[in-house]
């Protein structure tokens, strides 16, 4: 078992015939950030509950840190840290007390326990708040303490379920920096769920896109976007040109397609935007067509989601909220 996390055909049905997972398989290599992306209610949290031994699948198998989550849950628990969507902090305890209890439950004692708690408080910038009850913490501080609690016993694999939901933009950026650092410096494997496209895009090395209990696409963010074939090129012309002239000018540019001209706007797609742009500019120049600006954009995960789930991400999210 070379993967830090591996799941095969997980199925989970809740009471009332809600099929939360419908044959989910995924694999995350050690030391990487693996993202589960999907709208609310797509089954991401259920997958995390099964992988963290909280919940048993109806069918399928899964291994975390080399242990079977169904047959060796005790081994899995020692190897993982889990930060659930619901914080799970004791509000009436101080930050430091929360960390100490967590450590004790993993068998840590004495000086090593205290030193680790201090180290984490310092690292998450919570020293000053260490002896205040968590009730007095801001949302961002609580979320940081959540992650610190999950890291207390130095796990090999860390699960973060919606780590930035409900945080203000500043706290979110802070949390992103922290997650990137964890994966980089400590060689931790992180499985993170999110319903923010940009979060998955910037943090995860690999992604599984969830929709209605299924993984509809899997790969690196670039691979997923790459499958959409090409970059979008948008050119703004200085003055209106005849569509025929422009098309004629671009006819001989290799790997350029879907050319559309409307007034002063020219749109096209290219396998590689970076390679196509100078050729396009030269061809237009040769025809005497002047260019005001050029932008190249990679397809977004929004486009990816639309393609695989057959509906826009925001639409799926809204639908889930109504349910």
């Amino acid at each position, binding site marked *: 078992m070379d993967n830090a996390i591996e799941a095969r055909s997980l199925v989970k049905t809740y*009471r009332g015939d809600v099929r939360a997972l419908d044959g989910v398989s995924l694999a995350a290599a050690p030391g990487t950030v693996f993202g589960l992306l999907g709208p609310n209610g797509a089954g991401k949290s259920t997958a995390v509950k099964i992988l963290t031994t909280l919940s048993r699948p109806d069918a399928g198998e899964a291994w975390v840190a080399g242990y079977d989550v169904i047959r060796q849950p005790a081994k899995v628990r020692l190897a993982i840290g*889990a930060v*659930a969507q619901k914080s799970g902090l004791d509000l009436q305890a101080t930050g430091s007390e929360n960390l100490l*209890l967590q450590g*004790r*439950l993993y*068998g840590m004692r004495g000086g090593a326990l205290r030193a680790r708690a201090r180290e984490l408080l310092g690292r998450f910038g919570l020293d000053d708040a260490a002896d205040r009850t968590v009730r007095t913490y801001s949302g961002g501080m609580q979320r940081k303490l959540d992650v610190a609690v999950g890291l207390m016993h130095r796990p090999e694999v860390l699960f973060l379920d919606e780590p930035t939901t409900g945080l203000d933009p500043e706290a979110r950026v802070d949390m992103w920096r922290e997650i990137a650092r964890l994966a980089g410096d400590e060689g931790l494997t992180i499985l993170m769920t999110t319903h923010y496209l940009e979060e998955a895009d910037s943090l995860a090395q690999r992604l599984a896109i969830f929709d209605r209990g299924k993984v509809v696409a899997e790969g690196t963010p670039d691979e997923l976007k790459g499958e959409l074939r090409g970059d979008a090129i948008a050119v703004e012309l200085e003055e209106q040109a005849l569509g025929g002239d422009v098309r004629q000018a671009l006819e001989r540019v290799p790997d350029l397609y879907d050319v559309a001209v409307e007034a002063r706007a020219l749109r096209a797609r290219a396998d590689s935007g970076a390679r196509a742009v100078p050729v396009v500019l030269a061809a237009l120049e040769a025809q005497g067509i002047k260019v005001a600006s050029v932008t190249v954009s990679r397809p977004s995960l929004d486009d990816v989601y639309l393609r695989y789930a057959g509906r826009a991400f925001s639409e799926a999210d809204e639908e889930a909220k109504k349910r």
Partner: protein
Amino acid sequence: MTHMVADTLFMTQRHFRNLLRQPAWIFISLVQPVVWLLLYGALFRKIVEIPGFGAGSYIDFLTPGIVVMTCLFSAGWSGMDLIEDIDRGVIDRFLVSPASRSSLIAGRLVQGALVGVIQSVIIVVLGLVVGATYPGGIAGIAALTICAVLLGTGVGALSNAIGVLSRRVETMVAVSNFILLPLTFLSSVFMAKALMPGWMQSIARYNPVDWAVQAGREGLTSGPDWGLVMSRMGWLLAFTVVCAWLATRAFRVYQRSI
């Protein structure tokens, strides 16, 4: 096993500390027994004069009743805290850790028992202040405390079971209100059993609250019938074991629902 004991102690410590951080709770739980002792003591003072009541002083009669009632009521609400822990995700966090599963309920029961001992001692001392006498001495006070705490542990386990099954504060409040006060009045907490209507006496015979009051009161007499005390204590122990088992079953139902 040692793992379970250690985790239970950590959980007990957590619950105890959190309780001490609620000054309002401490204040109310200290004042309430005083109010009961003074209020009921004054209100019913004359009922000892009714022929057949069988006690010389009402405050002597009432004090063990208030000890038992106080333990009953604090135990009855202990499921509220579990509901809050479930709602906040605290229980799930512990379930993902290697923490002993039984410590999640056991820690609450041990904390409840400790609080019960402290409350009992305080009420016994308050009773002395308002004129109660305890001819049974330390042994009697110990028997009373043990019975009250056993009852509290059983009822606390039931309360946790209801909490984990209903998972709603409203349900918990309704069920507790529905059960606790009637259980108190269907026992000899306030009134000698001999003076109760026949049907109430029959119910009281199966009421754990009455077992605790009966045994506690007997222990405090000058010549206690230890056979009676021990038999009621045995029943209370059986009651507590059954309730603890029910609470574990209820917790499994919760675990399967995640």
